[in-house]
């Protein structure tokens, strides 16, 4: 956490020294600061900051890619005259435990076209989703658990390196 604040400070320092307060320059300053901190990482106590940032960036790219693919699929379904979809309401047992993890997962599921999270059971163990292309119910469940949920939870659950 303190490394993150240091990184922000470095970015602000870069912006004020280069005298150009634009978002692109702020991002550039953050990247340079991150690189500097990464190169001198052995000077600090072990922290999971670098791992978290790396996995977060990877996850964002993965998610945007999935978003584009799935959006095209739904667009195809909307634009073609016949309905080829096989909707189901599916019960999805959760690996996520805390409220933050569950709501993050539910929001991401809702944002991926083709799946929509409906409700979480009162004991927070099962998430009910509505899936549009669910001819094979088990495949949809496995896909979400192994891709989206596992990658999401791995972001902050891995030990510091």
């Amino acid at each position, binding site marked *: 956490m303190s490394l993150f604040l240091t990184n922000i400070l470095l970015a602000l320092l870069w912006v004020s020294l280069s005298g150009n307060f634009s978002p692109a320059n702020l991002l550039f300053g953050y990247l340079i600061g991150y690189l500097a901190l990464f190169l001198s990482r052995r000077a600090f106590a072990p922290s999971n900051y670098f791992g978290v940032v790396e996995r977060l960036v990877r996850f964002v790219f993965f998610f945007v890619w999935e978003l584009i693919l799935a959006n095209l699929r*739904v667009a195809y379904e909307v634009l073609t005259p016949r309905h080829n*979809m096989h*909707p189901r*309401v599916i019960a999805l047992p959760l690996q996520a435990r805390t409220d933050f993890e569950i709501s993050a997962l539910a929001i991401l599921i*809702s*944002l991926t076209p083709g799946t929509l999270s409906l*409700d979480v059971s009162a004991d927070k163990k099962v998430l*009910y989703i*509505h899936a549009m292309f*669910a001819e094979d119910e088990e495949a949809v469940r496995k896909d979400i658990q192994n891709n989206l949920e596992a990658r999401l939870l791995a972001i902050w659950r891995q030990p510091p390196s």
Partner: protein
Amino acid sequence: MAQDLSAWLIFFGALFMFIAALGVARMPDLFTRMHSSTKSATLGVGLIMLGAAFHFGEIGMTMRVIAIIVFVFLTAPVAAHMLGRAAYFAGVPLWEGTLSDALRGHYDRRTHRLISDEKVEENFPEGDIAV
């Protein structure tokens, strides 16, 4: 260059919005309509706002646009969740092509609690159409 980029971003945003509206008008039941409206609309608003940010290219504007995009991405799924849950309680029927419904029988109608492990006795009546 930046103007071209902004125009294309706005155009694709509008295209997604149009597809979302087409989906809302065409899809057979409420839940599939909500699929279409939440995602494509969020993506559409996001792209149009990004295009506007590129067009104006000011720092205050960019910050506002980022705030709107984050807000829309966080709230649209919440709205969809609340509406879907409410519609399920109101007895809105699923499309006849729906293969299975794991939620059926798991809601306690009186307390509105969702129980995952056992079925609640009181079931929703079949084909209960809300007007």
